[in-house]
């Protein structure tokens, strides 16, 4: 049976891993290659690296970083942050990334998803969605772009369904309301999306306790959980997370 995945997320800025609360107040959390290799040894199923500066200058740095990670880490990893073209995706995949995530550029040009899927296969294309609860409509979420700074009128569930049709192979769904709070994932959001699409969904934002991981999988229907604060600052090891999930009947790769 396919196991549920635990995916540590490493937000990278100037070649360092950082972590903030609600996308602000960044704290230094370590060296990306070292942290990546450490998580791999500790039993992480995958890794996500997000280039949160995503400037033209950082584009080159991130390719070099991906090369270094790929020489030392033998589990899959996804790279995202500011990716705009199929050629940029190509460069990252060639450097050793297994998947690439797109966000703002895909909202502006949804065809980017289709182009990338037809060239590299759907399984390489992750759509990252930054979701914020709508203030106007209950049980609805807005897609936010530019690292969450700019809300759009696009409904998160509609966008997820459209992206699946275009060829996205996976959705990385971040709740901006929950991100960094350690108060648990937004499982109403997770459930709304996992029920609407047939591609895997990674729940992101809000993990603080072991039972939050279980809830995202069981209540939210998530196929994988993204973790940051809960792992970087040493609250729980990956092994503890997996043993906990296994004890509650969730299939994991222990």
């Amino acid at each position, binding site marked *: *049976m*396919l*196991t*549920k*995945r635990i995916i540590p997320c490493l937000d990278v800025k100037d070649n360092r891993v950082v972590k903030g609360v609600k996308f602000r107040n960044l704290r230094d959390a370590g060296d990306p290659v070292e942290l990546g290799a450490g998580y*791999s040894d500790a039993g992480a*199923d*995958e890794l996500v690296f997000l280039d949160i500066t995503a400037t033209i200058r950082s584009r080159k740095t991130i390719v070099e970083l991906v*090369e270094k990670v*790929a*020489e030392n880490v*033998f*589990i*899959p990893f996804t790279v995202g942050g500011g990716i705009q073209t199929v050629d940029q995706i*190509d460069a990252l*995949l*060639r*450097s*050793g990334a*297994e*998947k690439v995530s797109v966000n703002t550029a895909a909202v502006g040009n949804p065809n980017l998803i289709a182009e990338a*899927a*037809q*060239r*590299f*296969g*759907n*399984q*390489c294309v992750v759509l990252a969605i930054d979701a914020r609860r709508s203030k106007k409509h209950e049980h609805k979420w807005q897609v936010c772009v530019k690292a969450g700074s700019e809300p759009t009128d696009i409904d998160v569930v509609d966008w997820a369904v459209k992206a699946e049709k275009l060829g996205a*192979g*996976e959705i990385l769904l971040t709740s901006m309301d929950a991100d960094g709070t350690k108060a648990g994932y937004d499982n109403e959001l997770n459930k709304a999306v*996992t029920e609407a699409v*047939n*591609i*895997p969904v990674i729940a992101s934002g809000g993990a603080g306790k072991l039972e939050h991981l279980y809830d995202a999988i069981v209540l939210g*229907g998530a*196929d*994988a959980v993204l973790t940051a604060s809960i792992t970087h600052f040493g609250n729980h090891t990956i092994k503890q997370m997996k043993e906990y999930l296994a004890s509650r009947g969730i299939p994991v*790769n222990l």
Partner: protein
Amino acid sequence: MIVVIDYDVGNVKSVCNAFRHIGCEVELSCEPGSIEAAAGIVLPGVAAFGYAVSALGPLAELIKESALSGKPLLGICVGYQMLFDQSSEYGRHSGLGLIYGSVVPIPSGSPMDSLRRTIPHMGWNLVKLPENMDLFAGLGGEKHFYFAHSFYADVTDPRARTAFTDYGFDLPASVQKENVYGTQFHPEKSGKAGLKLLQNFYDICKKINSKS
């Protein structure tokens, strides 16, 4: 020396990194001379099937000839799928035809299934390892490997040995037909078990080469 076929698809470097990590001499190349001189060939692939086949171009014939002459060949993911006759991913495309079978979409789960079957089949799944498949030597009865694919090979070749994983049906995860090997999953991204599998392939190459 193992040659990893360098063609215009993603992820070729990861395969080389993994072989280097286990101390295997490896070369990333698309030169016919290197392919002919290699102890074994690895055909990787992160791409759509049609794109991969056209990117491979005339190398396809050389790889096929090498395999038919007895040289060990390992196909990974789309490289594995290309070992078969054909695929229906984004159109109809012919493969190398080294193993009988067709590459077809993973069926979506029926509403009756208790678990939602996502497509792509993405993540770590448990593979039952038959004793008679050389790639799995020393790995025990079952291991988790990393999968990421929307199509799978429906293996019809009576001479191919097949290992399966459970995805609501028996999904072929790996084949072996004489000196032709393939894995739907990514050994280069499957942690320690994956590195051991690549070591086994390297050992097979060394053994065959010492005989000839």
